[in-house]
């Protein structure tokens, strides 16, 4: 099953990069299987 976001906030390029880094750090964690984000 998947989780699809119902709404996406509008982000600037720097904000998007920050969030991307955050999600990448989450995904890099050994136990993390999948990450869903409202993006």
């Amino acid at each position, binding site marked *: *099953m998947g989780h699809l*976001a119902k709404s996406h906030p509008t*982000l600037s390029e720097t904000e998007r990069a920050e969030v991307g880094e955050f999600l990448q750090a*989450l995904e890099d*964690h050994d136990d993390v*299987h*999948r990450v*869903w*984000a409202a993006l």
Partner: protein
Amino acid sequence: MGRQWLLAKREVASLKRSQAAGKFLREISVAAKQGGADPAHNARLATAIEKAKKESIPRDNIERAIKKGAGTGDEKLSLEHVTYEGYAPHKVAVIVEALTDNVNRTAPEIRVLFRDGQLGASGSNKFLFDHVGLVEAHHADPGVDVEAAAIEAGANDFSPSPTSRTTTFRKGPPGPASSRTAPPSTPSPSGWGATAGKS
């Protein structure tokens, strides 16, 4: 010295999943755990194995991952599926699915990762997401009618990928009595091949 590579990553705005082999093996373990160790009866496992083979992962590792998930191998780990919800910076809602053999270790680690954002209580974010079944499929003929295929398969929605020739079919949130509904069946007579079935 350690953080310089992070600056390079800042320039990359893509949020695709990383290509590390461990991710594919984890997917195989999860699929085997959920649907059994036989790829013939487990569509998710079959696609996971195909993906792993494409990344040239040794067959031994694949088999070990299957055994680990199905619980038939030497390692008697029992993996627990836990979900964490929170927000990334700038109020972006995030759901994290984790597979761990030790929740007490993982929970604080996730909390540390969420220091830039906000970790919420379980269930605080779920309403912001639609819980749906997703099937990715591709068709050799680019001119095929995607909408008709979606209606035939019983999908609620579809979205063609702008980059690859795959299309994602969505099946809406399952009712209370059908929480184990299978993903929409891709109509094989019309030539669609499922690349990823997430059920």
